Structure formats: C-alpha cells, structure tokens
C-alpha cells in the first residue's frame, strides 16, 4: 500500500491529488448526492414547486408495471448478451488455443470489434436488418419469415442483443484465450496420456481451470450490458416498439431528458447506483480470490 520509505509530509501530496479529487467531487460525488436528494422530491407539472416525499418515488416505481417489466427485460437482455458473446468467444478461443501456428493472427482478426462504439455496432446491425433493404430480411423473406423490428418487439430485442453481443465477443475471446494459454501444457498432456480426447479434455480439464475467468467475464459482461449498451438501443430501437427494448439505463435517460420527470429519474439513478455498487463488490471479492490462484 505504501512504500517503506516515503517523502516527508508537505503540501505537495495534496496538490498532487487535487485535480482528481476536485473532478471527483464536482462531477461524481456532488451529482450522485443530488440524485439521491432529488429522488426524495416530487416536482409539480410546471416545475414551480417541489415537495419532499421520502420514498414515494421509489414506491411509485415499485408499483409501476413499466418499471418492473423494464427491470426484468434488462436482466433478460444482459443474460442473453453475456451468454451469447461468452459462448461464441469460448468456442473460438478453444479452437484458437489448439492451433499451433496462427493463434495470434486469429487474435488480431477477432479483437478489433472491441474498438467499435456501441452506437456504431447498432448502426451496422440496423443496416443489415433494415426491413426494406437489409440483407437478412431479404433472405428471411425468401424462406417465408417476415422481419420488421419496427413493429415486432421480439425481433427488436433480438436485434439489440446480437448487436451488443457481437461487439463484446472480442473482449471475451481475448480473456479466454489468455486464460487457456496460461494453463501449463503438461496438464493437458497428462490428461491426453490418461486417455482423454480433445472434447473430454476441454470439458473436464480446460473449462474448470478457466472458471475464474468465466466468472470474471460474467460480471464484466453483465455490467457492459446494463450500462454501456445505451448507444445501441438509442440508435436501433429507441426503446421501442412499445417499450419492448427499454432497459433501465435507457429509461433513466428517457424519463429524465425526454419525460422531464426529475424525481422519478433520480430514484431510478439511485437504484442503478445500488446495482453498480453490488456488481463492483462482487467483482472485487472475486479478484481477491483470483489473486490466490
């Protein structure tokens, strides 16, 4: 935590931490506490007066079927994104780990989608699935399936899920490949001598050994799907049709900036903060464990 020897105390360390601390106070702590404060207020329709209402905003959210369904939807969305992108990445990493030459070439070819902004990923998939000119609706129509995600909520959800998962494959692949390559060769060789074939080895040796990575990625992907996919949803569906793709973050934005419901948006912010804190704690707990490996 601290060096054995340190510089003598003076005003200097305060100056050194000052920029970070000032930015943190003004743009993090203060707005966050404002959110907490506003979550206890209700503003009238004209913004003329506010009333302190304790937990009314929260109980209102609790009773709001839109909010509850958006909660469930966010969890479904996150689970699908995490599962799809991790499964796909795991399979590719498993094969990339097998190839003797060229695993770095494949890595190069697979990691670049990390650099694509979520909103651009959304734009790309929107183009591919555009009901009038998109390539996939064209193919689907040939086999007798009508595609229009502007009207069909299930299709809209599917579209944002694959757009979000596509972007995240790169990240998961990178971590899975690194985890597999760090397994000592001798362990897989010993399993092979014991008579385990490649699939069995993967299932009984490699997969259990990389389970810490799986858990780590699960937390990271869930966090990503919860908070960083705003751009995808904003570009592809704007939460629609009929709120079928409105996630929690999208709802905070929409209620706050479009609906101008300050108290409600603030209460949603507070709930999200609690979620992030929970996820961060899980992540740190896990990292402590991982260190012991």
């Amino acid at each position, binding site marked *: 935590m601290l060096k054995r*020897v340190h510089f003598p105390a003076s005003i200097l*360390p*305060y100056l050194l931490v000052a920029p970070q601390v000032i930015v943190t106070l003004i743009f993090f*702590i*203060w707005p966050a506490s404002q959110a907490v404060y506003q979550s206890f207020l209700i503003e009238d329709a004209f913004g003329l007066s506010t009333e302190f209402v304790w937990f009314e905003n929260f109980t209102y959210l609790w009773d709001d079927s839109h909010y509850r369904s958006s909660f469930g939807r966010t969890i479904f969305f996150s689970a699908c994104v995490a599962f799809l992108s991790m499964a796909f990445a795991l399979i590719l990493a498993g094969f990339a780990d097998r190839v003797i030459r060229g695993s770095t070439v494949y890595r190069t070819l697979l990691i670049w989608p990390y650099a694509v902004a979520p909103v651009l990923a959304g734009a790309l998939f929107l183009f591919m699935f555009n009901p*009038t000119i998109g*390539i996939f609706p064209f193919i689907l129509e040939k086999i007798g399936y009508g595609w229009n995600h502007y009207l069909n909520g299930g299709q809209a959800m599917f579209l944002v899920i694959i757009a979000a998962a596509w972007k995240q494959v790169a990240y998961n692949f990178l971590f899975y490949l690194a985890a597999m390559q760090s397994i000592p060769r001798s362990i897989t*060789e010993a399993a092979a001598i014991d008579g385990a074939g490649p699939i069995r080895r993967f299932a009984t040796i490699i997969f259990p050994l990389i389970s810490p990575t799986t858990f780590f990625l699960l937390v990271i992907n869930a966090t990503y799907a919860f*908070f960083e996919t705003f*751009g995808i949803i904003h570009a592809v569906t704007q939460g629609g049709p009929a709120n079928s793709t409105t996630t929690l973050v999208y709802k905070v934005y929409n209620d706050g900036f479009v609906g101008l419901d300050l108290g409600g948006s603030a209460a949603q912010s507070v709930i999200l903060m609690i979620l992030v804190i929970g996820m961060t704690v899980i992540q740190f707990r896990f990292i402590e464990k991982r260190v012991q490996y």
Partner: protein
Amino acid sequence: MVENRPFLAILSHLILILGVAMVALPVWITFVGASHEAERMLQTPIPMWPGDQFFVNLKQTFWGSGLTGTSIAPVWMMMFNSLLMALMIAFGKIAISLLSAFAIVYFKFPFRMGFFWMIFITLMLPVEVRILPTFEVVADLGMLNSYWGLTIPLIASATATFMFRQVFLTIPDEMLESARIDGAGPMRFFWDILIPLSRTNIAALFVILFIYGWNQYLWPLLITTDADMSTIVVSIKQMLEAAEQSPEWNIIMMIALLAMVPPIFVVIAMQKLFVQGLTETDK
C-alpha cells in the same frame, strides 16, 4: 497440441475462419455499402461485393456534411472533434491518475486513505447512472458545448489510478532511496524515474483510453447541442434518423466507417499495448 491429427487441425482452422467471417460480416457489408452509388443501395438484394464509388463517396462525405437535408457540421470537423475529445480524455485521465497514484504511494499524509476511497467510489458511479444531475452541474458551470464540458467530467479515473498504484508498488523501494541519496526531490523523482519506468503502462493505458474517449456517446449527446461541437460517433444517430427522408445509405455507411476506422486502426497497430492495457486495467 497434444494430438497430431491433421483432420483436427484443419477443422480448427475452418471453424476459426468461419468465426472471423461472422465477426467481420457487419463491417464488410458496411464497407460494401460505402462503395456504391446511392441508387444501387435501394435495390434489393443489396450488393455483397464492393462497387467502384468508394473514393468518390469518401471525398464527398469527408468534406461534406453527410446527408442532404441534415444540418450537421462537416464530417472532417466532427472527426477532429472526436480526435480532440479522445486525446483530451486519454491525456487527462493519465495525467491526473499518475499524480494521484504518486501521492498515494509515495507520501504519507493525513486523509491519504480518505482520498483513496473517494477515488475508488468513482468506480461505482458511471455516468449512465447519474446522467441528469451531472448534466445540470455542467450546465450550471456554463460548460455545455465546450471541449472542457465534453472531457473534464470524464477524466476522473479509479481504474487508471489503481493501475498506476499497482505499477508504482512493483518498483523497488531502492529506486526511491537511491534517488533520495542522489538528491532528487519528489517531482524530480517523478519525472526522471517514475514516468520513464511506467512508460509502457502509460502507453498501454493510452490505447485503451483513446478508444474509450473516441467512442463516447451518451455524454457528448447531452453536452453538445451545437452542430459544430458534435462528434462523429454521435452524428451517426442523426444520420440514421435522416435516412428515413433521404436514404443515402452509401453516405451513412461511409460515415460509420470513418467513425470506426481510427480506433480499429489503433487496436490493430498497437495490439500488444492494447492487450496489455486491457488485462492490466481489469486487475
């Protein structure tokens, strides 16, 4: 690998090539879309092979302002805004995180741990969960539609601070002792010893933060209402909306390409640093 069966090796390569193709498909379609005339893009099925209009479209898009009928800044200017924002965020985060990690590791002073935890808390407060009040603060400070408003609220960084703290902790104590015997004061030690010893970590972090900064969406969407301040990534949304009136998909796809090429280029060109940065910041 353990087995030496050519069949398995070929299968592995086939599956990997298929995977790469699936991952690359959306970008390929974008590239193809950006290389045809607008009229061609309205006939189904859309082409799967590049046309000959790529450079024509590139020229028109880069110097123009996107679709006819939209009121946005020229694309080159939005790219410049994106570049400036990405650089300011990356340098800003690195600079203030280096300084605070230096203070926390090498000084013993009252409230040291208090500051440490305060920085830690920022990890739990992503901009997405406090959108409205943060926007209000920036608006009150008169920082809307400015580069400062675009970047400064994003430059506090717990991850970068922790990473540098970790890096500094692995530097032997004797470096500091030796430097003190040599007569180096704190800032001199920081510049002459710490910064050079952390330079690959700084570079790795820079790659990650540049991408992070370039790809910002929600924040610039809120902060920049002037067309002149818009970033290329944010503009894509306006393009998609405008497409309903004037569906010039070749231009939209070209803008999308222009928006993603710089960060992709950075990832591929600095792959080693990128991988190092990703794995280090998540420790």
